[in-house]
């Protein structure tokens, strides 16, 4: 499986966010996006997911499911993670697993991110870090080859950061691809793409 971008450009509100971006990621590889605020890290993730159309260039996934758009083979974890505060932690996760077709058990996914004891609690009582962990539980509960992580370390404590690195390592070991926009260091051995604000 290879994710290949050629001459990718994105324009939002009439402003060119980035242009002529080339990269290629094979399975088991991770790419860290670096750059100042506004350099287009999040925009690039959204372009890869297909949530924002690229204004130029192409993006293709070799060896994935040819019929499905790339977005359907991606997990996207952004600053807002789709958690409904009035539903319990378990209900939130059950929904995303049901909707995305996950087959893991709810309890084991919650345990894997260290919030197994919070399952019956309404999600509005979760701290920001615990919400982030719940979002991560949703992406490990359903297998998709590409993970797009937007500032995944935000709000996570040292333990959480180590856990996330472990999850990323496992995912890469399974032949997945990770693209992460981050200021801190994630998993060693990742390649880095510097985005310049234009």
């Amino acid at each position, binding site marked *: 499986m290879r994710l290949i971008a050629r001459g990718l450009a994105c324009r*939002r509100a009439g402003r060119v966010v980035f242009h002529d971006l080339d990269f290629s990621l094979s399975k088991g590889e991770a790419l860290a996006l670096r750059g100042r605020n506004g350099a287009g890290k999040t925009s690039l993730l959204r372009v890869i997911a297909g949530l924002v159309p690229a204004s130029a260039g192409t993006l293709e996934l070799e060896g994935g499911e040819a019929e499905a758009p790339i977005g359907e083979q991606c997990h996207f974890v952004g600053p807002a993670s789709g958690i409904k505060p009035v539903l319990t932690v378990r209900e939130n996760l059950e929904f995303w697993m049901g909707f995305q077709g996950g087959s893991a058990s709810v309890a084991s996914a919650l345990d894997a991110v260290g919030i197994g004891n919070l399952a019956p609690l309404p999600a509005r009582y979760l701290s920001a870090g615990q919400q982030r962990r719940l979002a991560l539980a949703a992406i490990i509960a359903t297998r998709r080859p590409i993970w797009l992580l937007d500032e995944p370390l935000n709000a996570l404590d040292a333990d959480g950061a180590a856990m996330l690195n472990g999850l990323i390592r496992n995912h890469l070991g399974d032949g997945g691809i990770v693209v992460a926009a981050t200021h801190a260091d994630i998993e060693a051995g990742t390649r880095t793409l510097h985005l310049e604000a234009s």
Partner: protein
Amino acid sequence: MTGRALSALTVRELRLAVRIGGSALLGTLFFLIVVTVVPFAVGPDLKLLARLGPAFLWIGALLASLLSIDRLFQADTDDGSLDLLMLSSTPLELVVLVKCLVHWLTTGLPLVVAAPVLGLLLDMDGMQLLSVTGTLLIGTPALTMIGAVGAALTASLRRGGLLLAVIVLPVTIPVLVFGVSAAAAATGGTVPALTPFLVLGALTLASLALAPFAAAAALRVGLE
């Protein structure tokens, strides 16, 4: 796969509607208040009340539907759910349809059930109550579907509720016209009762067929 996704979505929407801050009973309470206020404004003339009854019930239902529909997509846009709903093999049009269906079940249907009870406050007789309830049953899905297009257009705006009403109200006029005239015709009028009923049904079917596509397109544009 799609079936499982849609049933998961249905369960979530139903849970959200009945939990704190959900819209399930709020619309019905609003409906009750609007209809209760009418006799105070119109005065104690029972004949007048009975004649205006179907119109007031329809206006109450229209406002109650609009009141609750502005959060239909806004909540999902705010908390990032919409992004994730789009990264799925389930077509967004079906997601819209399911959300509308649950919205109607939790706000439209209670209005229909409450209508005959509230009609008593307006001194309507049995036949009138039956016809108004019937027209509301046929017509309120159209209000939800039309409202959903407005909700999708205003999903990314903060405080889009007022704009939603301005966009949606003019479009709902045909539903209102045929709803009220069908209810009035059933209890003696100049037109045969069946004609406005059929037009009302056609409006609902057309909105069911077209609105999911319009709303999904509006949501996609709104994300960019």
